[in-house]
């Protein structure tokens, strides 16, 4: 059944349908609809909801709930995600699944509450201390956010890792028709869980501490072997570049919708452009840049930041083509014409 729902609320409803049994959060704009929705509907669904004393408190509540084997989620916005990094490093270190939603805003510092994509580094480069990554999903529509929430819980359980989703104020606040229906459940062994059943099996321990250099190195190598599997199985990209396109525009999340319109506008101006939209920001779809049609002579990266995903595009392109950048930040959002102008300048020369 199709329903009309706001992005933030659709994310919550999808999480509940996906079997999330606990939500711990803290107020921060522009994600407040998430804890608000959960405070009523998670409880109605028989799950746990706590408005924590801080983002640090919330992520550590997730750590405790996840340790017992239940599906758990938290959400916040950029500065609050920064506060959660300690807990995310511990979740990664202790191999605990958890879904973390970042309805991002502009920064640094307190910044502003308008949409921005300045959290790319924070989300894709570990963020906390130590050797780890987290899968990061970047939906561009309410329906895709729903689909990726189901996926995020599965991937978190399958690979025993925290998983992040990044939306922004645009996606969080926009209403779109969508479908939220239960998906086939995956089978995951959670016999490791510290669920207080040591009378029925050997005792379990959830821990990231290892004081032996060789022991800790081994733990990290084992984690990175799982990361290889994630890279192989879970990398997602929406590649719309066709033979004959002269320029590839790379954008993600809600701002990629502006890029879609820019591609149409460029067509009207007689320029063939194609869109590359990474859906996972980690693992990054580097391969897409190795198999571009030979007609593509330039790459234009468009972000609501000073250029962060730009680094990953450059890694993917590996010097084969010129990589250009057009971005806005601080909460300013580009218009299709701005992107089209930047692309036209590149294609017609002079850039």
């Amino acid at each position, binding site marked *: 059944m199709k329903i009309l729902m706001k992005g933030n609320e659709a994310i919550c409803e999808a999480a509940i349908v996906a079997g999330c049994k606990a939500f711990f959060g803290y107020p921060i704009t522009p994600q407040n609809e998430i804890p608000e929705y959960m405070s009523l509907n998670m409880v109605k669904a028989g799950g746990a909801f706590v408005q924590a004393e801080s983002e640090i408190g919330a992520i*550590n509540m997730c750590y405790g709930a996840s340790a017992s084997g239940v599906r758990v989620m938290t959400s916040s916005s950029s500065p609050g995600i920064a506060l959660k990094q300690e807990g995310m490093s511990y979740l990664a270190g202790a191999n605990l699944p958890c879904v973390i939603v970042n309805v991002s805003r502009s920064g640094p510092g307190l910044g502003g509450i308008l949409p921005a994509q300045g959290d790319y580094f924070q989300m894709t480069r570990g963020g906390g201390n130590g050797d780890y990554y987290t899968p990061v999903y970047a939906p561009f529509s309410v329906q895709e956010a729903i689909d990726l929430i189901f996926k995020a819980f599965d991937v978190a359980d399958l690979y025993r890792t925290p998983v992040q989703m990044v939306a922004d104020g645009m996606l969080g606040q926009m209403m779109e028709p969508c479908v939220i229906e239960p998906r086939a459940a995956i089978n995951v062994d959670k016999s490791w869980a510290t*669920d207080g059943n040591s009378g029925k099996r050997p005792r379990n321990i959830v821990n990231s501490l290892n004081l032996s250099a060789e022991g800790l190195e081994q733990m990290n190598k084992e984690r990175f072997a799982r990361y290889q599997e994630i890279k192989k199985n879970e990398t997602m990209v929406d590649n719309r570049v066709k033979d004959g396109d002269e320029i590839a525009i790379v954008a993600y999340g809600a701002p990629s919708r502006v890029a879609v319109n820019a591609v149409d506008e460029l067509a009207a101006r007689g320029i063939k452009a194609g869109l590359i939209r990474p859906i996972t920001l980690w693992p990054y779809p580097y391969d897409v840049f190795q198999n571009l049609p030979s007609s593509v002579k330039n790459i234009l990266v468009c972000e609501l930041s000073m250029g962060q995903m730009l680094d990953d595009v450059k890694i993917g392109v590996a010097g084969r083509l010129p990589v250009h950048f057009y971005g806005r930040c601080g909460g300013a959002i580009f218009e299709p014409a701005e992107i089209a102008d930047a692309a036209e300048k590149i294609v017609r020369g002079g850039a």
Partner: protein
Amino acid sequence: MSKIVYEKSRGLSETQLSYCPGCTHGIIHKLIAESLVELDLLERTIVISPVGCSVMAYDFFNCDGIQASHGRAPAVATGLKRTNPDKIVFTYQGDGDLAAIGTAEIVHAAHRGDNITVIFVNNAIYGMTGGQMAPTTLIDMKTSTSPLGRVEALTGKPLLVSELLSQIPSTTYIERVASHDVPHLNKAKRAVKKAFQYQAQGKGFSMVEILGTCPIGWNMTPTDAMGFVKDTMMPYFPLGVYKDEGGEA
């Protein structure tokens, strides 16, 4: 035929304790283990260990264990208990963990009245990191970061955690006990047992503050350290029941 008159509690694991000679963490572990066994709660208990000397407490108790980040054990306990309300959840925390970096987490677990038990071992110093000043370090006490003794004008007076938490409306049971001699250990065990009983009965937040020793950090013999608890700590940290709204245990 010989008769067993004393044996190690089965609530403790076979792992060798990592504590320094003369420190009272080991004996406090024993009180907890015995209490959980006597109350028949051990098999459904989860211990949450802190960062500090007792960081490896998850290894020492014969039940499930979780290692928490510094100061956050009460938040971890909240997440665990809210999703597993029929289990017994306790945190084991020192004064650096609970009374410094973890003040927000302990105050708000207490504020929510979470049905958990907190065992707070106050030895007035950061033990594991090498004997730095804690919020509970006594005035004039020398530590590696108060080499001339704690100066009130610069660092205030030692924090009184039991007094603080007993003022929070949603707490149920707060008691301060000591671990320096047998009569006090017997009292300490009664307090620990009561706290777990209250949790099993769903009566809400309980904390037992136990004055402990740190002979290495204090630069004392174990015997002198026991005397320090009695003569110097107890006058500033008065023992007693600060709050008990649990009724019959």
